[in-house]
């Protein structure tokens, strides 16, 4: 019943190999952009900047009345943190597929801009990078907040500036702590690259579907599945090595 024609498999492999290149490109560039962007988002999320805070008097610090509480909430309002929180909530709370569609068609429907051909790939990258930045930001934040306050104090007494403290003391320790959750995200990203098919960017899954239609066969989809599995096997292996490399201290 299920006769597999191996010459057909080789043909599929060749074509999917090209698609794999596109998938790897989306994957690598998304990581390249989203990981630093996520750090900026994490800073915004942790921002304690409260422009009205200076109006706050001693008495309002422990409000009892409702009016007092509202006043305290207004005076303690942190605009950057608030905006970034909403940003993260939207990106984590809506489907990535929808976000890709919005990024690609948004410029036309919102501003009437005509879209050049090259924008298809840029839209894929923006959609993935911004979405993953939101996830990475929360991972970074949990990592940064898990570093004991004593580390900041020791650095401060030794004369480290804020940025020196972050770069040399906090960031390396955070990086070690976040490897397991980041591995999860990275593996998810490999599979998520297939969502680029909604913009018909010719990555592996889009091509697999097209070959399946041409060959009138389900086989290309299975082969694509094997490719994704191998891709993730490599990713998991690399992440494990990184985790081990960071295990020289506890």
């Amino acid at each position: 019943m299920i006769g597999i024609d191996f010459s057909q498999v080789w043909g599929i492999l060749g074509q999917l190999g090209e698609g794999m290149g596109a998938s790897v490109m989306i994957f690598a560039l998304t990581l390249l952009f989203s990981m630093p962007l996520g750090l900026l988002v994490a800073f915004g999320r942790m921002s304690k900047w409260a422009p009205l805070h200076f109006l706050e008097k001693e008495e309002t610090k422990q409000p009892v009345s409702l009016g007092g509480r509202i006043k305290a909430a207004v005076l303690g309002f942190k605009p950057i943190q608030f905006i970034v929180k909403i940003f993260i909530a939207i990106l984590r709370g809506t489907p990535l597929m929808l976000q890709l569609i919005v990024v690609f068609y948004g410029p036309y429907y919102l501003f009437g801009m005509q879209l050049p051909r090259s924008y298809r790939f840029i839209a894929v990258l923006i959609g993935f990078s911004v979405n993953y930045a939101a996830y990475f930001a929360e991972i970074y934040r949990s990592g940064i907040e898990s570093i004991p306050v004593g580390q900041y104090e020791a650095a401060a007494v030794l004369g480290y500036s804020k940025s020196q403290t972050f770069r040399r003391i906090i960031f390396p320790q955070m990086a070690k702590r976040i490897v397991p959750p980041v591995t999860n995200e990275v593996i998810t990203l490999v599979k998520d690259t297939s969502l680029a098919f909604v913009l018909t960017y010719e990555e592996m899954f889009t091509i697999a579907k097209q070959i399946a239609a041409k060959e009138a066969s389900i086989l290309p989809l299975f082969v694509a599945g094997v490719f994704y599995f191998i891709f993730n096997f490599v990713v998991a292996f690399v992440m494990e090595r990184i985790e081990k490399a960071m295990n020289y201290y506890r």
Partner: protein
Amino acid sequence: MKKYLALFLTMAMSVTMLAGCGGGEQPAQDNVETPADSAERTTFTIGFDAEYPPYGYRTDAGDYEGFDIDLAQEVCNRRGWELIKQPIDWNTKDMELNSGSIDCIWNGFTMTGREDSYTFSEPYVDNSIVFVVLADSDIQTAADLAGKVVVTQADSSALSALESEDNAELTASFATLEQIADYNSAFMNLEAGVDDAIAVDIGVAQYQLQSRGDKFRMLEEPLSTEQYAIGFKQGNTELRDQVQETLDEMLADGTFDEIVANYTDYNLDQMVCLGK
């Protein structure tokens, strides 16, 4: 705190700049789009469903081919345009066309019933919507579909035919009418017994029957008859006229029929209607 603010601003700027990249190339595109400059048109981007053989599909070499693409290529050759073959998701074809990422939809695109939404070329293929069932199915006529699960492509002409008033009674007799993203999945479903029948354009049906052997058969009586044409953005008559002019030339000197002859396997020679 100032540092965080600065970082945040940097972030906001980088996002804007990224977004700006898309807009940055836009003026060039505008030149191509505006009718006044169309004399300088250098590219012609067709949007097609690459999962819709024999009209458009992916070859083993990784290129896109098919009846419609061959026609478009010949038009471009004669006009001196570069043909850009842009596969699209059929569900978002209107967004693609409106946003200017494609110049036309040229892919077994049914004009019947859509005349008011697009600027169409002359129809060039007579297409029927047919039902495909498993070869050993006991379904023989449309009437036998009562209580059965019928599937068709989302946003397809087969779907609009089934939803039209003429066929309301028939459609109401189905157990359900399911929509699916592409016909390949539909045939997989049918083979797996999830669905009982597929409503599909005859060209696609013949391609599938050709490729998949004798597992399937078509019901003899078509659901409806309709016509394929090339769909341009509403009001873009100038580009439509240019393409139509070249198509007519191709018909006159026999090139059109030569292209059709390559697709006789799928009975396209019996279906073309341009100039008839």
